[in-house]
């Protein structure tokens, strides 16, 4: 039963079998069937697991197109795109006349993944190919709001896919269960569908993972999924972290949190005095926190096998005295992050001043900041020399005011 992936086994081969997004399907089929289409490429976009790739494969199957695919695992630089896509979209294969194949479709999946040095020039190459293509070009992406795709959006017909609705996912799961002879409680399917957040692929994978031959799939079986896919924010992590009843709960929560380790450590440190009012308990909690900090330092960027010790110490810090918990107002994000945010404009201004000093006095920014700025501040406070000095350093009035009022840096 578990040899084949159900996602592949039950992948629809006909357009009508692709669940959900009926409106997007109609637009796509209209576009594909229209030989006088104004835009030669279509960009399907929407969250993962809603049927973008499946629809393209089903349409190709139904309308007898041959798919030439480039996905995120291929290098999509200008050279690579031109090498693969140009022949696929400019020439007609001889088999078009001898078989039922109508022609090629160039399908570029996960187009929003084009990034970095490896894929340099990829987007421009695609635009050039779209201008000259004879074959339909189909692209799929999760996020089209990224800057890099802006020129591409102008030359494409955009079709948006919505997350698949829960009743539709439940129907799909029911159908699979019936075909696989899996007994189930309806509530269990409901839980899987809700947990998938509109992602049919993950729902089917969850169903396959949970179902066992000869055993009924119950609501109890789905409890392990409760935190799956849950993007726990900093605020929610802190809220649940300080309210945990035991180490296991804390460890479980930390495992699913998506908050940066360093930010989390700082935020917990900042909020700890609010959580433990008893100084002895507070000292104990800070002791665990400091050990977590030590492990975070040792992890660096490569020793991730130590992460469990980092989490373990954080979990212990949360459960020093679970009974004493009373709700309190959090400091979130951490004070250091807030301070950096508020002082960003000041730091930018100081850097700009140091650069100007560096240019005139032939010193580095660091030297300018440490050696020149304190004296410059005193000199600018004496009004007689201030104007000439500011003029020589090309400082703006705003920078002069900032320097004279500078207390520390």
């Amino acid at each position, binding site marked *: 039963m578990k040899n084949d992936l159900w996602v592949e086994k039950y992948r629809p081969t006909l357009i009508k079998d692709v669940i*959900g*997004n*009926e*409106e*997007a399907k109609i*637009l796509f089929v209209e576009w594909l069937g229209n030989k006088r289409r104004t835009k030669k490429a279509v960009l399907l976009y929407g969250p993962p697991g809603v049927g973008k790739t499946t629809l393209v494969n089903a349409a190709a199957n139904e309308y007898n197109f041959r798919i030439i695919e480039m996905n995120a695992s291929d290098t999509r630089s200008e050279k690579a795109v031109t090498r693969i896509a140009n022949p696929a979209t400019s020439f007609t294969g001889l088999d078009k006349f001898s078989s039922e194949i109508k022609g090629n479709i160039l399908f570029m999946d996960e187009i929003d993944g084009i990034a970095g040095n490896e894929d340099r020039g990829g987007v421009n190459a695609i635009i050039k190919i779209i201008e000259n293509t004879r074959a339909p070009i189909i692209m799929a992406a999760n996020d089209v709001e990224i800057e890099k795709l802006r020129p591409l959006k102008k030359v494409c017909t*955009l*079709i*948006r896919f*919505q*997350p698949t*609705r*829960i*009743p*539709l996912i*439940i*129907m799909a799961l029911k159908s699979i*269960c019936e075909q696989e002879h899996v*007994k*189930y*409680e*309806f509530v269990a399917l409901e839980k899987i569908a*809700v947990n998938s*957040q*509109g992602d049919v692929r993950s729902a089917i994978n969850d169903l396959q993972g949970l179902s066992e031959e000869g055993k*009924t799939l119950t609501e109890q079986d789905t409890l392990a999924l409760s935190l799956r896919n849950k993007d726990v924010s900093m605020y929610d992590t802190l809220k649940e972290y300080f309210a945990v009843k035991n180490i296991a709960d804390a460890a479980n929560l930390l495992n699913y949190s998506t908050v940066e380790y360093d930010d989390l450590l700082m935020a917990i440190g900042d909020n700890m005095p609010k959580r433990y009012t008893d100084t002895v308990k507070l000292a104990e909690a800070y002791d665990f926190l400091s050990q977590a900090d030590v492990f975070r330092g040792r992890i660096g960027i490569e020793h991730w096998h130590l992460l469990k010790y980092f989490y373990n110490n954080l979990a212990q810090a949360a459960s020093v005295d679970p009974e004493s918990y009373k709700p309190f107002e959090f400091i979130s994000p951490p004070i250091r992050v807030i301070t950096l945010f508020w002082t960003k404009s000041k730091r930018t201004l100081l850097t700009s001043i140091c650069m100007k000093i560096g240019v005139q006095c032939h010193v580095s920014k660091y030297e300018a900041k440490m050696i020149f700025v304190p004296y410059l501040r005193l000199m600018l406070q004496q009004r007689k020399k201030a104007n000439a000095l500011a003029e020589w350093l090309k400082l703006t009035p705003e920078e002069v005011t900032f320097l004279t009022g500078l207390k520390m840096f």
Partner: protein
Amino acid sequence: MVLLNQKGFKLPRVEKEKFMLLLRLGLDYNSQQTLYSIKNYNSIHQLRDTLQDILKSEIAFTQTCTICNIDFGCSTCNYTKFCPTKDLPFTCVCNQCLRPKKNLQQQKLF
């Protein structure tokens, strides 16, 4: 709350700019039947906001069941709390088709 039928609905007369905006957001206008319908769903959230502004009331679209093809409202659904496209005009499955009443006794154990 105003319930709009996604297959065709009427709107009060709107200014030219508003009308252009509605067309840009994906509406289609049939001048013979004086009915609006949705042609493109890419900007459906903005379209809903604009329609709410025109009608000065909250709006909801009817849903069409993919199985029995009847129109129904999201208010009858048990999953609205988790649905990111609540009240928007997309295909769905009605309660009757999702949990057939004939099988109520069998629901606990299929």
